[in-house]
């Protein structure tokens, strides 16, 4: 049997990689992929604890997270399309209208 903690390490590693990607990258699309990776890490933890306690609630939560992630990806990509129409770029550096 694989210990539960190994799954949690995997979850933490995925979350960490996603976080670093979101912080380090400039391409909006890659940043969105980093957010997906973070959500995947959170899902992994939910499913792991669901198995640990022998209850299915964690898996239901993971399904909700997947649905919310799909909605987030749709809206996020629509925003990217809209930004690309006006700026013709997809770097976060170009999106400083609110700051200036």
């Amino acid at each position: 049997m694989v210990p539960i903690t190994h799954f949690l390490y995997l979850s933490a590693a995925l979350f960490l990689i996603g976080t670093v990607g979101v912080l380090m990258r400039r391409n909006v699309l890659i940043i969105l992929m980093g957010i997906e990776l973070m959500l995947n890490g959170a899902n992994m933890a939910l499913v792991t604890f669901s198995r640990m306690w022998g209850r299915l609630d964690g898996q239901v939560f993971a399904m909700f997270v997947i649905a919310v992630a799909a909605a987030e990806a749709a809206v996020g990509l629509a925003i990217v399309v809209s930004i690309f129409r006006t700026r013709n770029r997809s770097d976060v550096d170009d999106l400083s209208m609110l700051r200036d």
Partner: protein
Amino acid sequence: MMSAVELTFLAFAALAVFSAIVTMTRSNPVVAAVWLVASFFSVAVCYVLLSATFLAAIQVLVYAGAMMVLFVFVIMVLDVDESGRAEHRRPSPTARAGYFAAVGITVGFLIWVLTGTLARQYVTYGPPLELRDFGSADSLGRLLFYDYLFAFESVSFLLLAAVVGAVVVARSRRDREKEAVLRGFAGTERSAAGLDPDDLADEVLGHSPVPAHDFGAPSATGHDGGT
């Protein structure tokens, strides 16, 4: 001697982490998206090892299927920068130092907290499962439609709102101007909505002298260019 389950877990966990790292380091978003699919598949295998079979299927269908198609479609439509030039543009030495310091502190804290909590976890193999069909669509659906019905309906509304919002946000300015003119909004109303107050050219509205659907007479050899 490792069992087959342990070998499977190690192989696919390593693949998940490796492809996640590759995803975050590629400059070409298309390549990154394909590696992200590999990561999602590996995570789905780990779900199976946790006896979450239905969730593994959902993961492959929704993440690796629908969402990646969305990503790749947007990348293809947008003609994005694939050279990664933007990654090498840094504001100033001071800002760069602060930037890397912030990333380092964030990652350091995350690693500290995660290893600090995980290393103290009681390693358990989990209790023996009471439900025989743990993680199946049947048992998951029962829970979803009895205990979490309200949340389920809320999520369906959320998805509807996301679809409508995505369509509204992604529509081009030209489309919105066209619709405003077609609906008979006056110029002042259109400028109040942030649109171009001037009337659009006739061709935009489909009033051009040549009908848009006139492609010329059909010919035996195929389409000859129309008018």
